[in-house]
C-alpha cells in the first residue's frame, strides 16, 4: 500500500460519508425535537431508494432522473408527516420508549409493504445521467458520482445550517431541542412543529436513499443495515447535533476506508486481515467515543427527559388478586406436560415462552426499576448461551455445571460492560450497551476456531433428565419461578429502593448517601446473570447456537416484549414476553406476510394499552 492509495481511499470515503450523513441528520433532527428513537428511519431510506429506482425507470431523460430523486424524497417526507399525524400523535402522552415500539412495528410493516409492491428481486437503478464518467486522481479513476456525493454532503449540511440559524422554523426547532416545555409555554403550535420536524427527518432519509440509486440496488435488507449505521453516526456526533452527524459520518467512513486500504497487515509475524474489522468498525469507534466523551463529540448534556420515568408511580406489593392470578398461572404452567401426550408441541412452545420471559424479566429489572434502557441486552443472553455451549461441548461438562458457567460468563460480561455503561444516561447508555453487544457479536462471528464462526456450535443437548421436551420444560419453569421471585424480592429490598431512587432522582439519592453508580452496576450484574440463564436454557432447548443469539434483532425483541408488557409492573415482562412469543409463533404459521401482521398487532397493542399490557390493566 502506498501513500497515494491511502489518500485516494480517504477522498473516496467522503462519498460514503455523505450517504451516511443524510440518514443520520434526519434521525438526529427527529430525536432532538421529539425525543423519538425512530426505528422506521431505515425503512424511510429504503423506500426512498425503491421509489427513486422506480421513477428513474419511468421518467425520461436527465430531468426525469433527478426530478424522480427529488419526488421520491418528497414522497417519503409526506409519508413521514402522515405517520406522525396518524400514529405517533396518539401516543405522545406515554413514556418515550413506546414510540420506539410503534416505529419498530411500522418498520416491520413497511418492509413487507416493499416486498409486496416491488417483489423480492434486487432492483438496480440506472446510472446518473451526466455523471457516468470519472475523473483522474492520483493515477486512479474516481467516479463523477462520488465527487458529486462528496460535495452534496457539505451542501446539505450548509443548507440545514442556514435553515436552523436563519429561519423562524429553525429557531423554533433549536428552541424545542433545548427546552420543549418552554417552547410550548410560549404558545408555539407543538403539534405542527412535530409534524414538520418528522417530515423533514423522513425527507432527509428518503433523499439519502434516493441518492444511492446510482450506487446500489434497492433491496429489502437495507432498512436494518442503514438504521444501525445511522444510529451510530448520530450518537458519535451527539444526538441533535447536525454538524456532529457530519463529522461522525466522515470519521466512520474514514476508519472503514483505512481498514480496507490497509488490507492484510503483519504484526510481529502474525498476519491480520484488517478488512475483517469493517464488520464492526463503527461500533468500535462509538464505544471509544462514548467511553471518553459520553455526550458524543458535539452533543450537549440534556436535562432530565420531560416525560420520562420521573413520574413513575411507586411499586406496590402484589395484592390478593395478583397472588391468585400468579398462582393460577403457575398451576397452568405445571399442567402443560399433562397435555403433552395429546399435544406434543405445547411444551416446546411453552419452553420458548419461558426463555423469553426470563430474558425479558432481566431486561425489565434494568429498564423498569433501574431506569437504564439497554439496546444490547442480547450480549448477556448470547454470552450465557455461548458459555453454556462451550462448557458442554468443548469442556464436556454435564448439563448443570455447564449451565452455571454460562450464567457466570454472562455475569462477567455484565460486570465489565456495566462498569462503563452505568456512567451514562438515557439514549447514550442504551447505545453503549448496543456497541458492546455488537463487539461481542463480531467476536463470536469471526472467531471460527472457538465459537464456530457464523455457523455457531451444534450438538449441545442436555443430559438426562433434561433431554426430553417435558424434562427441559420443567427445569426452565423452575428457573423462571426462582428468577421471578428473586427479582421481586430484590425490587422490594433496600437494594431495589436504592435502585429506584437513583432512577427517579439521582442527585437526591446521592445526597442521601446512596452510591448510585455502584447500585446501578450491581443491577447490571444481576440483570446480566439472569439473561445468561435465559441464554443457557436457550442453548439446551435448541441444541445449537449461532451469533444470531447476539444480534440487535434479539435485543430489540426483548425491548419490545418489556415495553409491550409494561415497565411499571414486575408482571409486565411475563405478559409481554408470553404475548410476543405466542403472537410470533402464530402469525409465522398463518401468513407469508407475517412480519407485517406482527407489526400491525404490536401497533394495536401499543394503541390499546399505551402503558403496556400490565400497565393498562392496572390503570383501569
Amino acid at each position, binding site marked *: 500500500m502506498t501513500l497515494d492509495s491511502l489518500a485516494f481511499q480517504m477522498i473516496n470515503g467522503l462519498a460514503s460519508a455523505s450517504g451516511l450523513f443524510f440518514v443520520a441528520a434526519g434521525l438526529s433532527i427527529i430525536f432532538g425535537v421529539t425525543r423519538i428513537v425512530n426505528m422506521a428511519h431505515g425503512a424511510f431510506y429504503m423506500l426512498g431508494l425503491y421509489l427513486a429506482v422506480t421513477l428513474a425507470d419511468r421518467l425520461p431523460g436527465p430531468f426525469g432522473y433527478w426530478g424522480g430523486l427529488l419526488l421520491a424524497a418528497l414522497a417519503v417526507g409526506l409519508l413521514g408527516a402522515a405517520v406522525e399525524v396518524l400514529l405517533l400523535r396518539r401516543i405522545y402522552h406515554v413514556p418515550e420508549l413506546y414510540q420506539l415500539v410503534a416505529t419498530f412495528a411500522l418498520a416491520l410493516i413497511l418492509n413487507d409493504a416493499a416486498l409486496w409492491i416491488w417483489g423480492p428481486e434486487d432492483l438496480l437503478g440506472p*446510472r446518473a445521467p451526466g455523471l457516468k464518467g470519472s475523473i483522474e486522481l492520483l493515477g486512479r479513476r474516481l467516479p463523477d458520482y462520488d465527487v458529486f456525493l462528496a460535495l452534496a454532503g457539505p451542501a446539505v449540511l450548509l443548507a440545514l445550517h442556514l435553515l436552523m440559524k436563519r429561519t423562524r422554523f429553525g429557531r423554533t426547532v433549536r428552541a424545542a431541542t433545548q427546552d420543549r416545555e418552554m417552547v410550548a409555554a410560549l404558545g408555539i403550535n407543538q403539534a405542527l412543529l412535530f409534524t414538520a420536524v418528522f417530515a423533514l427527518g423522513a425527507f432527509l432519509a428518503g433523499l439519502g436513499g434516493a441518492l444511492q440509486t446510482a450506487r446500489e440496488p434497492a433491496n429489502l435488507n437495507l432498512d436494518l443495515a442503514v438504521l444501525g449505521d445511522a444510529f451510530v453516526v448520530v450518537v458519535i456526533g451527539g444526538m441533535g447535533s447536525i454538524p456532529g452527524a457530519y463529522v461522525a459520518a466522515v470519521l466512520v467512513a474514514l476508519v472503514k476506508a483505512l481498514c480496507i*486500504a490497509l488490507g492484510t497487515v503483519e504484526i510481529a509475524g502474525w498476519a491480520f486481515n484488517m*478488512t475483517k474489522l469493517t464488520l464492526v468498525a463503527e461500533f468500535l469507534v462509538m464505544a471509544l467515543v462514548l467511553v471518553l466523551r459520553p455526550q458524543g463529540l458535539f452533543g450537549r448534556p440534556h436535562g432530565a427527559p420531560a416525560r420520562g420515568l420521573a413520574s413513575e408511580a411507586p411499586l406496590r406489593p402484589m395484592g390478593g388478586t395478583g397472588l391468585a392470578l400468579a398462582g393460577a398461572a403457575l398451576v397452568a404452567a405445571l399442567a402443560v406436560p399433562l397435555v403433552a401426550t395429546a399435544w406434543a408441541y405445547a411444551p416446546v412452545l411453552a419452553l420458548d415462552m419461558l426463555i423469553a420471559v426470563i430474558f425479558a424479566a432481566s431486561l425489565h429489572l434494568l429498564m423498569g426499576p433501574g431506569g437504564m434502557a439497554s439496546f444490547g441486552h442480547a450480549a448477556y443472553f448470547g454470552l450465557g448461551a455461548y458459555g453454556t455451549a462451550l462448557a458442554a461441548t468443548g469442556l464436556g461438562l454435564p448439563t448443570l455445571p455447564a449451565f452455571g458457567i454460562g450464567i457466570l460468563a454472562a455475569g462477567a460480561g455484565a460486570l465489565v460492560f456495566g462498569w462503563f455503561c452505568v456512567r451514562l444516561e438515557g439514549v447514550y447508555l442504551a447505545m453503549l450497551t448496543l456497541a458492546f453487544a455488537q463487539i461481542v457479536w463480531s467476536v463470536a462471528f469471526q472467531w471460527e476456531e472457538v465459537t464456530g464462526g457464523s455457523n455457531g456450535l451444534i450438538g449441545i443437548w442436555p443430559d438426562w433428565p433434561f433431554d426430553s421436551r417435558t424434562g427441559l420444560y420443567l427445569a426452565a419453569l423452575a428457573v423462571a419461578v426462582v428468577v421471578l421471585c428473586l427479582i421481586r424480592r430484590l425490587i422490594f429490598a433496600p437494594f431495589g429502593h436504592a435502585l429506584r431512587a437513583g432512577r427517579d432522582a439521582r442527585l437526591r439519592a446521592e445526597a442521601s448517601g446512596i452510591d448510585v453508580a455502584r447500585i446501578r452496576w450491581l443491577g447490571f450484574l444481576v440483570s446480566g446473570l439472569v439473561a445468561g440463564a435465559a441464554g443457557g436454557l436457550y442453548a439446551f432447548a435448541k441444541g445449537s447456537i449461532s451469533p444470531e443469539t447476539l444480534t440487535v434483532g434479539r435485543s430489540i425483541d426483548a425491548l419490545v416484549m418489556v415495553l409491550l408488557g409494561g415497565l411499571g409492573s414486575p408482571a409486565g415482562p411475563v405478559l409481554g414476553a408470553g404475548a410476543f412469543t405466542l403472537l410470533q409463533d402464530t402469525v409465522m404459521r398463518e401468513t407469508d406476510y407475517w412480519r407485517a401482521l406482527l407489526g400491525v398487532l404490536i401497533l394495536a397493542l401499543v394503541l390499546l394499552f399505551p402503558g403496556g399490557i400490565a400497565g393498562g390493566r392496572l390503570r383501569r
Partner: protein
Amino acid sequence: MRSAAHRSPLLARLAAGAALLLASVAATVPAGAAEPIRIGELNSYKAQPAFLEPYRKAMELAVEQVNAAGGINGRPLELITRDDGGNPGDAVRVAEDLVTREKVDVLTGTFLSNVGLAVAGFADKRKVFFLASEPLTDKITWADGNRYTFRLRASTYMQVAMLMPHAVKANKKRWALVYPNYEYGQSAAATFKTLLKAAQPDVEFVAEQATPLGKLDAGAVAQALADAKPDAVFNVLFAADLAKFVREANSRGTLDGTFVVSLLSGEPEYLDPMKDEAPQGWVVTGYPWYAIDTPEHKAFLDAYQKKYGEPPRLGSIVGYTSIISLAEGLKKAGGPDTEKLVEAFKGLAVSGPFGPFTYRASDHQATMGAFVGTLGQKDGKGVMLDPVYVDGASVLPSDAEVEKLRPNRD
C-alpha cells in the same frame, strides 16, 4: 421479464396472489382416500425471497406431478411449508412444530448454513429424516455430518472445485480474493487458496478483502483490489453486494483486463438484476436455463413456464429436485419409515432437470452438479456463454478421503 412483472396492475397482482393461494391449498389437499405422506418444509422465505419464491413454486409443481403419477405406492404427497424466521432458534422450534403438531414424515428445506446445521442437529437428536436442500456449508455433510441428514445442492467446496480447472488454465501468478465475511465466503476463499496452491505452487495471493455481508463499501474495496495489481481475481460476493461491486469496478475500470472467476454469479437470481451491466468474461458457476437442451431439463422448463408464465431460477431447480429426490427415496424405502428412508437414500439414484445423479452413501452428499461458463451479454442482459455441466461426482473427494472429513459416521 422482471420489470414486466413488477409493473403489472394491482388487480393482476391480487388475482395472481389469489391463484397462488388456491394452488397451495390445492397442493395440500389429499388427492385420494389414502393417507398422504407429509413433507415438512421450512425455509427463510422472508429473509431470502428472491431465491425462495421460485423455489416454493417449483416444489408445488413437483408435488403436483408426483401425485398425478399416482404418488408413492398410491399415497399422495402433502407439502407443508413454514417460514423458519431466518435464524436457527426459530427454525428449531418450527421443526419441532412440524414434527409434533403437523406430524410430518420427513423434513426438508433451509437456506442459510447456520439454520441448516441447527436443523441437521435437531434431526440427528430426534431421529427425523432431513434433506437439506440449499445450505452450502461443507460442514453439513462433513465435519458435522450425521446419519439423518442428506444434502442436495453442490457444496461450497464443490462449487470452488468446479471453477478450479479454469483458474489453473489461466495460469495467472498474482491473485486477489474478495468474499463476504462469514463462513461461506471464508471457506470458499480457503478452499480456493488450498486447491490453487496445490495445482500451481508458484501462485501468489496479493490481496484479500473480507467484506461485511450486505454492507459492502464497493468503491473502496474495488480500488483496494486494483491497488494490489492482481493478474486475476476470485470473487465470492453475491446479491446486492455483487451488483454494487460490479458497478463500481466498471466505472473505475479497476477490473479491466483482469481475469475473474466468480462463484454463483451465473445464477439468474444474481445475474438478472445487473441487466446490461453484467460483467463480461468472468468464469462463473450458475444456471443458464436458456441454454440447456437436455430432454430432462426441457420437460421441466416447459412444465414450469406453462404453470407460472416465467422462467425458472436456480431456486426452482433446487425446490423441484428436492421433492423429486424425496419421492424417489420414499418409493425405494417403501414408505416414510425414517430408518428405512435413511438406508434408501444411501446411493439413491435420482433423475432431475440436470440429469441423473446419486446421493453418496459415504457423506450423504448429492452429486448433482452445476454449470460453468463465461459471462457475456445478450439482448441487454447477462448470460452464461458456452455453459458446460460439471458432474458433482467429478469434483468430490473420494469415499476414503471423506471418511476422514466426517468424524461422526453412522
